[in-house]
């Protein structure tokens, strides 16, 4: 169909219109995940197909296996595929609460050095929450901080957990945050910290943010205490733009912001690593109670896919799919159960595909 339009425009002799780029297929590693993972991944693949996005999927499974030396690692073929394609889309993975092998997400993070977790939170028109007009991005340092995993029992009944803050990691995340702000036309970056209590550790984080801010004078830099951010966030979320913070605060705040726009079922998320690797994922759980019943909501994974397309530079496909998705939700005729309707996942997917094709 693309070829036909090209012919017609040339034949018509009209002004040379910008030709859509030749469809160079880019490989993306798809990790369906557990629980509802496979069905929502299939839904996303179907929608991308309908939009004719130049994406070639390489499906891989990720489970923890014990490598030589007793260290836990991901399967070799998954790692090789990611290293080659550099872009991944991942569904939900099971994380056990009790001790055992380390969480899968943590393993992926360590393997690819995914240091930045980016979660854009935008209010979805058509899915009403008490908070309207939310439009912010949380950027969370993902490798150190409180999640270092270093804990010891000093004496019976006294436990010490270590929070690690390093200069390099703080500088790296600050630089990423400012670059993100610049590339996505965001006007300000706010560093969130508790340096009045944790004077050395958060103090170091803050110092690095301030230093990096010097090199990015076109982006406004502010700093705010974590408790003030929480207080203001639930009263007026429109005052925030890009937020950058260490690990634990980022975890809490990003989930808080997801709650403002409607929960984890509609929030996209991306993890950026060193060496240009980026894995986009849906952050909700595996929902084992509805797995296989065609009831899941693929919106979160779909919006993460849209984020991925933008990262890859395929903005028009991203816009098309996002508009189709939001229009479907706005129409309220075909919605999955968690969005307030009673359609099946497949029906929801088909509706979005239809809209995408109409928009093409």
């Amino acid at each position: 169909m693309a070829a036909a339009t090209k012919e017609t425009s040339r034949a018509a002799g009209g002004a040379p219109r910008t030709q859509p780029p030749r469809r160079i297929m880019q490989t993306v590693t798809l990790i369906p995940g557990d629980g509802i993972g496979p069905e929502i991944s299939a839904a996303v693949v179907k929608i991308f197909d309908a939009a004719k996005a130049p994406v070639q999927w390489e499906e891989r499974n990720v489970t923890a296996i014990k490598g030589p030396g007793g260290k836990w690692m991901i399967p070799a073929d998954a790692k090789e595929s990611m290293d080659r394609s550099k872009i991944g889309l991942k569904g939900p993975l099971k994380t056990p609460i009790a001790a055992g092998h380390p969480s899968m997400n943590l393993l992926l993070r360590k393997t690819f050095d995914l240091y930045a977790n980016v979660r854009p939170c935008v209010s979805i028109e058509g899915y009403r929450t008490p908070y309207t007009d939310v439009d912010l991005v949380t950027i969370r340092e993902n490798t150190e901080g409180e999640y270092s995993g270093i804990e010891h029992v000093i004496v019976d009944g006294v436990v010490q957990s270590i929070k690690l803050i390093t200069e390099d990691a703080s500088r790296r995340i600050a630089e990423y945050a400012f670059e993100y702000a610049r590339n996505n036309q965001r006007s300000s970056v706010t560093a969130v910290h508790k340096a009045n209590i944790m004077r050395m550790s958060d103090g170091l984080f803050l110092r690095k943010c301030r230093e990096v801010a010097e090199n990015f004078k076109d982006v406004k830099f502010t700093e705010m205490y974590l408790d003030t951010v929480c207080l203001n966030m639930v009263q007026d979320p429109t005052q925030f733009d890009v937020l950058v913070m260490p690990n634990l605060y980022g975890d809490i705040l990003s989930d808080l912001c997801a709650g403002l726009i409607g929960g984890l079922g509609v929030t996209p998320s991306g993890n950026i690593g060193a060496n240009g690797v980026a894995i986009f994922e849906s952050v909700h759980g595996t929902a084992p109670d509805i797995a296989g019943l065609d009831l899941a909501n693929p919106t979160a994974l779909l919006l993460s896919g849209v984020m991925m397309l933008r990262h890859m530079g395929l903005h028009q496909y991203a816009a098309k799919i996002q508009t189709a998705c939001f229009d479907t939700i706005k129409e309220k005729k075909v919605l999955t159960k968690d969005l307030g309707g009673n359609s099946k996942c497949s029906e929801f997917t088909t509706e979005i595909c239809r809209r995408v094709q109409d928009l093409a």
Partner: protein
Amino acid sequence: MAAALRGTALALAKGLGGARLHQLVSRPLSVSASLCGSEAPPARADSTFKVTMIPGDGVGPELMTAVKDVFKAGDIPVEFDEFYISEVQNRASDERLEKLLDSMKSNRVAIKGKIHSPMENKGELESFEMKLRRTLDLFANVVRVSSLPGYSTRHNNLDLVIIREQTEGEYSSLEHESVPGVIECLKIITREKSRRIAKFAFDYATKTGRSKVTAVHKANIMKLGDGLFLQSCAEVAELYPKIKHENIIIDNCCMQLVQNPYQFDVLVMPNLYGNIIDNLAAGLVGGAGVVPGESYSAEYAVFETGARHPFAQAVGRNIANPTAMLLSAANMLRHLNLEYHSQMVSEAVKKVIKQGKVRTRDLGGYSTTGDFVQAVVENLRHPPT
């Protein structure tokens, strides 16, 4: 009936003078009401309660003035021992701390504003407020989050209690630079303190007739630390079979609080999470200006606001909202067993909020702190019978 008695007492007082007047006026009315004024009750040794007052930084002094004005207008028999302590203004030496502790030892009850912790590392890793909390062993911080009638927010009719352990956890002030560029900050969790706060939470729930206590944690990541906290809560929960016990991970908790806060009743948690959730919940009902809070140790009780901020940008502009501090002062009066006065103050404040005519800037109005205090004082003079 109490109002009539009060009228009589005042009339009597006006007719007398000097020491007799002071004695009559400072006698707690609850005593007079119960005895129907037929015979003079035995003179109380401390008929005026003495309370330590620490105005703190930022708008603290203004809020304290509001409290004093309201107390004076309501003839409330409380005298304040004031201590001006501030870390940012270099008025936080050890001698001052000693004097403060002496005052606390005799008074046992205090009302305080926020003592701001500066960010600059002046060599002290521990902020003054933390030191105060540890010295007085104020291990439990209780914040009662309830929606104010007449002021609607996105979530109305909220009624939560947040209990936070505030002497250990992430605020242990144990930090060091092991290698240049790498800083370690220690978070300490002990079984003893976790059990103590859990027991406090369950006792509180039992005393106030609450049905559920939820422990907030991050034990899926901090398996040993928060795992110990969770285990302690579960152990204590077994001693209270009538109260339901649940637990929830902190990030999920934050999300649920903004989507459906009604599922929570009493929440108990370690230090940092408590800080976050206190502020979050305060924001849900109207902000830092409307939520009172208190801190308890085995021997002392300190009354303050729920969300603790110095609010420096409002200093001198007469715009701070004294509601939180006044409601906290009312709680303090209840703690001192001055039930009548406590009701008088809190009902006056709530009436002003409900009427909606005098509202400070944070609640969407244009009134000043002074206007609000004036309105509360007016309502005090005409208490609802």
